[in-house]
């Protein structure tokens, strides 16, 4: 049966290839979209796994009528007394600018902020040092700074030599470390970080927390979230903003999901068009092959034999398109995931679904031409040969 069904395809290869291509593109689009979304999702999950979803931040609300932009100085202490809180780390914005040297005009701040931080900040944020090291008990006392990734780039510092100095708050600070991007707190990428004591002694900074980073027991994230504002600022809890940075990553993924749905829709449209293409080719094929139909009827084919032959041909076309589409979608996903450094993950449902969808479309597209071929009277078919 397969042999007979493939006659038409083997004798009209180009046409068969082109009509299978329609289905192939549709299936490839769907498999690719599902594969890419799965691969990126797995990457995100790995990222969340690494960073943890148990980080909360408390920030003083800023804006008209909301407050001063500062948290009470005892806020960190209060928060650390909440049971499930494992770690707190305070960040205090310093009113100072950073320049590459003292020759740079005052206006060219490069958008770099100065933040006085606790030495456990890196640990709390699950951040990584790109070069040098983070502030420790010793360096936090002296005019030394660690640069966020964007700040380092803007200051033109690519590695730590131990002798580089930056002009920070009208003083020379030595750069001791460069950081990788903070995935959970991108604001700090644009900052020069100095120790609390150094800020107090060299920059005349009065340490008032502008934000507090909190690691909590993962099982109690919601409980802690609900009491954080009141704990941080019992007088004005409404002036406190509580956030969970991992939510932002998840929201980004949700946005990606919306795109996935859109592309799936486009894939479905391509598939539909591919199906129409197959139906079209089959109808033409039935007309062109009237004499073959007549001959087969003369050789003893029943109507059913003829219908099965043409339906089989449509199914074969769509199967070729479906399998080719899965392979193409897989390849595209593999290449893209490789470029992005993700693992290539194709959900099995996409593979099975892709081939099944192609076959279904082939069956629907082939049904009408097959019935038409079967109903053709043998004498009519032979006469027009």
């Amino acid at each position, binding site marked *: 049966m397969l042999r007979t069904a493939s*006659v038409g395809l083997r004798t009209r290869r180009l046409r068969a290839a082109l009509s299978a291509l329609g289905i192939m593109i549709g299936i490839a689009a769907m498999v690719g979209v599902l594969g890419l979304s799965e691969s990126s999702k797995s990457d995100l999950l790995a990222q969340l796994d690494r960073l943890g979803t148990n980080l909360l931040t408390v920030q003083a609300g800023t804006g008209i009528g909301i407050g001063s932009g500062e948290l009470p100085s005892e806020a960190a202490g209060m928060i650390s007394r909440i049971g499930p809180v494992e770690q707190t780390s305070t960040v205090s914005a310093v009113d100072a600018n950073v320049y590459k040297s003292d020759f740079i005009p005052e206006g060219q701040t490069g958008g770099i902020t100065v933040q006085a931080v606790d030495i456990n900040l890196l640990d709390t944020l699950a951040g990584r040092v790109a070069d040098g090291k983070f502030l420790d008990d010793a360096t936090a006392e002296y005019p030394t700074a660690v640069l966020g990734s964007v700040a380092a780039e803007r200051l033109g510092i690519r590695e730590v030599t131990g002798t580089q100095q930056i002009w920070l708050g009208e003083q020379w600070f030595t750069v001791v470390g460069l950081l990788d991007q903070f995935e959970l707190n991108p604001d700090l990428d644009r900052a020069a970080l100095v120790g609390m004591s150094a800020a107090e002694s060299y920059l005349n900074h009065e340490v008032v927390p502008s934000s507090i980073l909190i690691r909590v027991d993962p099982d109690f994230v919601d409980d802690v979230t609900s009491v954080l504002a009141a704990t941080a600022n019992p007088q004005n809890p409404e002036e406190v903003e509580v956030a969970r940075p991992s939510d932002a990553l998840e929201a980004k993924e949700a946005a990606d999901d919306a795109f996935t749905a859109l592309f799936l829709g486009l894939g479905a449209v391509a598939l539909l068009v591919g199906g129409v293409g197959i139906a079209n080719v089959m109808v033409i094929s039935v007309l062109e092959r009237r004499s073959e139909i007549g001959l087969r*009827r*003369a050789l*003893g084919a*029943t*109507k059913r034999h003829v219908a099965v032959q043409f339906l089989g041909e449509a199914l074969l076309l769509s199967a070729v398109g479906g399998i080719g589409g899965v392979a193409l979608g897989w390849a595209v996903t593999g290449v893209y995931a490789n470029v992005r450094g993700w693992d290539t993950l194709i959900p099995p449902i996409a593979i099975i679904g892709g081939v099944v969808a192609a076959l279904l479309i082939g069956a629907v597209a082939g049904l009408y031409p097959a019935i038409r071929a079967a109903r053709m*009277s*043998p004498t009519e078919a032979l006469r027009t040969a």
Partner: protein
Amino acid sequence: MTAVLSENSSTPTSGRDIVLSLHGVTKEYPTTPPVRALRGVDFSVTRGELVGVVGPSGSGKSTLLHIMGTLDRPTAGEVTVAGYDIDDLSDRDLSALRSRHIGFVFQQFHLLSGYTALDNVADGLLYTGLNLRTRRDMAEQALRRVDLGHRLDHVATKLSGGERQRVAVARALVGTPSIVLADEPTGNLDTENSDAIVDLIRQINEEGVTFVVITHNREIAGAFPRTAGLRDGRIEYDTGLSHE
């Protein structure tokens, strides 16, 4: 041949050796105005016969062939093929009857262009339920029978016209049908190839195969042991009737 005929003519009504019989067959096409292609045709073929049916175009030759081949049903009258009254048979049964009892040879050969000679002939058995290997073995024998043993694996399009028609004859023979119906088998051939095909048909007939050859060529039909003339949907003459 004559022996066969005379033997048959002694028991014409026993039906045992009548391969094909048409009785009062009329075929009307429901066009406007209706066309009466056949008007009360009585015609029968006995096993082992070689009959030429000759007539000008429009005489009803093709319609007669289609009805003899069970590709079409008559408007009125009886058709019996290999002992089966086709009135009693469903469309599906007719297909089975054709696959087992009737071989066709067409003017346009009707070979499948992508297939080799062997597979074209093997397709003559496609609807008999035999497996591919058996079909190919039988096809090879049939091709050797028409002297095409050296062309088994040639694709149909690479064969000459004469060779193609030989392949078509082999395809008609491969299932050892009760009767072979040939529709203008020489119509698309030059004189030389045409003569060769006629010779082939005679030779195969001598081996015992029953043939009805439909043609507009009086010369070809006249050379066969029995000739029937068709005109305006009626059998005008039939040299076979003189034997009865």
